[in-house]
C-alpha cells in the first residue's frame, strides 16, 4: 500500500535539484554547419565533424554563445570572462565521437536565480530558486533499441543510431540544491520549469517543446527527516517531458523515498526513468559506472571570452520578463488573481493571448481555454496545448457565439468535434448539422408544445411566478436539441404568457 503524501511531508523535508536541458533554436549545429531541423530522415544531417571522423575540426557557432549568454543574463547570472569547453569522455554509442563536448569547471554563466510563484491555499507564495550554472554542450544522437520484449535498453538485441540530433547546441541549466519548499516541492519544481520555459520562449532561443524533447528536465529528489541538517541520498529522474510530469515525478519520488526510509532501507543513488502512464519511476543506468568521465579541456576549440561590449549588447536586447508580461496581460484583460493563476497553472496563457490577438473577447477566450478545453485535456491526461485545437479555432468559435450563430452549448459540440479531429469549426458545423434555431415560428411551435405538456406551470407563470418559466424553457431547449438560444426562448415564452 502506497504511503500517503501527507504522511511523507509530516515526517520528511524534501530537497530538490533541477537540471534542465534546452536545445537552442539555431539554424546549424553547435560545432558544424549541419541543419538542426526536427524530424528529418535518419542520418541526413551529419558531417565529418558531428560524426567525429578523424581529422575533422569543430568551430563554435557564435549564435549559440550569444543565446547562452542571453539565458544567463535572464537568469541573473554572472557571465564568466573566460570559459573553455571540455571533453566528457564516455563510451556509449549515442555520441559517435566517444565524448561529448561540454563544459566542466568553467561554465559560461554562474550564480543566478529565478523567482517563481505558486498558488497555495494561503494565497500566492514566492520561492527563489538559485542557479548554480548555465553551460553549453551538444545534444546526443537518438537510439532505437531493437529486439527484446519492450523496446527498452534492457533485453534489446541491438541498437540503431540516428545522429541528426548529435551536435545540436544544448544548454544545461543547473540549480543549486533547493531546500525549504516543504509540501510544495512538486508544485515549485513544476513552477520553476514553467517559468524557465516562458523565459526561454520569450528570449526566442529555443522552441521549448517538451513533448519533442527540446526542453527536458532531470529532477533530483532527496528526503531528510525534518530537523536534520544532513542531506539524504538523492535519485535523479531523467527526461521528464511535460510540466505535469515534473510535478508527478517529484511527488512520486518523495513517496518512494519515504517508503524506503520508513522501512529502514536505503535510497540508492541512481538515475531513474519516469513512466508517463503509471507516474512511477524505474531504475536506469547506475551512477557508479557512468561517473568516470575523465573531463579534460577540449584542445580543438579555443576558449570563449565574451567582451563586456558583447554582454552589454545582449543585455540591452533582452525582452521583458514573463512576470512583467503577465502583469500587463492581467491588467489589459482585467482578470482576477485567482483566474490568472488558474490560467498559468493550466498552461493556457499563451493560448488565450493568441486567441485574443485574433479578435476574441478576453473573458470568452479565457473561459473556453480554462473550461471545456481544459476539462477535455484533463480527461485525456495531456496539456491543453497538445490537443488538436488552435487559438484560431477558438477565436472562430467565439466570433460565432458573439454573432448569435452558436450557443454556448452548441459551441461545446464544435469544440468536441475539433478535438476529435473532425476538422475546423466551420466544417464541423456543416458536417454535424449544428445550427442555432432562431426562427421564431419554429420556436413558437416548441413553446406551445411545452405549455400544452405542463399547463399548471404555464398558469403559475401567467400568475406572475417567473421562476417557474425555467421548466418550460428547459422543455423547449430539449425539444430543439439545445439548438435554440435560451435567452430568445425566454423572451418569446414570457411574451406569449403575457409577462413581458
Amino acid at each position: 500500500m502506497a504511503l500517503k503524501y501527507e504522511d511523507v511531508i509530516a515526517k520528511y523535508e524534501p530537497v530538490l535539484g533541477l537540471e534542465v536541458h534546452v536545445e537552442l533554436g539555431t539554424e546549424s549545429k553547435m560545432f558544424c554547419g549541419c541543419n538542426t531541423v526536427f524530424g528529418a530522415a535518419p542520418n541526413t544531417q551529419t558531417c565529418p565533424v558531428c560524426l567525429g571522423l578523424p581529422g575533422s575540426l569543430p568551430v563554435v557557432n557564435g549564435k549559440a554563445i550569444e543565446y547562452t549568454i542571453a539565458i544567463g543574463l535572464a537568469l541573473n547570472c554572472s557571465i564568466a570572462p573566460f570559459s573553455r569547453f571540455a571533453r566528457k569522455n564516455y563510451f556509449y554509442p549515442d555520441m559517435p565521437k566517444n565524448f561529448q563536448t561540454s563544459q566542466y569547471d568553467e561554465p559560461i554563466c554562474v550564480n543566478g536565480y529565478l523567482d517563481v510563484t505558486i498558488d497555495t491555499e494561503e494565497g500566492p507564495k514566492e520561492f527563489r530558486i538559485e542557479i548554480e550554472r548555465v553551460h553549453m554542450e551538444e545534444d546526443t544522437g537518438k537510439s532505437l533499441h531493437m529486439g527484446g520484449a519492450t523496446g527498452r535498453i534492457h533485453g534489446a538485441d541491438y541498437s540503431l543510431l540516428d545522429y541528426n540530433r548529435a551536435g545540436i547546441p544544448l544548454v544545461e541549466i543547473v540549480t543549486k540544491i533547493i531546500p525549504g519548499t516543504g509540501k510544495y516541492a512538486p508544485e515549485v519544481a513544476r513552477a520553476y520549469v514553467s517559468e524557465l520555459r516562458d523565459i526561454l520562449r520569450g528570449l526566442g532561443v529555443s522552441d521549448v517543446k517538451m513533448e519533442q524533447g527540446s526542453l527536458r528536465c532531470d529532477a533530483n529528489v532527496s528526503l531528510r527527516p525534518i530537523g536534520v541538517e544532513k542531506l539524504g541520498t538523492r535519485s535523479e529522474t531523467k527526461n521528464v517531458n511535460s510540466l505535469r510530469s515534473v510535478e508527478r515525478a517529484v511527488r512520486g519520488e518523495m513517496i518512494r523515498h519515504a517508503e524506503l526510509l520508513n522501512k529502514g532501507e536505503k535510497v540508492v543513488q541512481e538515475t531513474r526513468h519516469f513512466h508517463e502512464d503509471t507516474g512511477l519511476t524505474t531504475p536506469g543506468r547506475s551512477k557508479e559506472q557512468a561517473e568516470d568521465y575523465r573531463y579534460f579541456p577540449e584542445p580543438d576549440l579555443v576558449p570563449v571570452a565574451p567582451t563586456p561590449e558583447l554582454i552589454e549588447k545582449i543585455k540591452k536586447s533582452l525582452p521583458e520578463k514573463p512576470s512583467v508580461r503577465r502583469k500587463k496581460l492581467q491588467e489589459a484583460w482585467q482578470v482576477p488573481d485567482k483566474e490568472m493563476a488558474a490560467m498559468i497553472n493550466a498552461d493556457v496563457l499563451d493560448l488565450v493571448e493568441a486567441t485574443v490577438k485574433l479578435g476574441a473577447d478576453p473573458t470568452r477566450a479565457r473561459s473556453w481555454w480554462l473550461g471545456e478545453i481544459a476539462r477535455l485535456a484533463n480527461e485525456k491526461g495531456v496539456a491543453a496545448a497538445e490537443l488538436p485545437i488552435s487559438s484560431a479555432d477558438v477565436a472562430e468559435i467565439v466570433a460565432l457565439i458573439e454573432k448569435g450563430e452558436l450557443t454556448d452549448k452548441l459551441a461545446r459540440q464544435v469544440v468536441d468535434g475539433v478535438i476529435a479531429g473532425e476538422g475546423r469549426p466551420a466544417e464541423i458545423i456543416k458536417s454535424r448539422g449544428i445550427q442555432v434555431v432562431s426562427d421564431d415560428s419554429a420556436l413558437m411551435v416548441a413553446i406551445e408544445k411545452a405549455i400544452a405538456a405542463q399547463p399548471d406551470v404555464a398558469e403559475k407563470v401567467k400568475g406572475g411566478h417567473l421562476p417557474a418559466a425555467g421548466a418550460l424553457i428547459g422543455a423547449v431547449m430539449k425539444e430543439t436539441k439545445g439548438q435554440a438560444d435560451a435567452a430568445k426562448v425566454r423572451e418569446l415564452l414570457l411574451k406569449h404568457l403575457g409577462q413581458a
Partner: protein
Amino acid sequence: MSNISRDDVANLAKLARIDMSDSELDHLSNELAVILDAVARVQEVAGADVPPTSHPLPLKNVFRADEVRPSLTPEEALSGAPAQEEQRFKVPQILGEE
C-alpha cells in the same frame, strides 16, 4: 614507476568496450606505465609558475556564423559503419553485459 595498474587498464578496456586478453592486459599495463612515466618527466620540468596548457596558441573567440552547410548523404555517413539497418548505424546491445 607510474601508478597505472593492470586493473585500471582492464577497467578502461571495459569502458571502451575493447575485449582484451590476459596477455594483452599485462603487456599494455607495462607499456602505458612507460608512456605515463615519460609524461611525468615533462611535468617535473614545469614548475609551479607554469600553468597547465590546454591551448598552445593564445587564440580566443573563434566563431562561425550560424549558417547551414551541406551535410553528407546518409550513404556517405554510413559508408564507414560496420553494420547498418533502416539508414541507421547498427551497434551491439548497449547495457546487456552487466
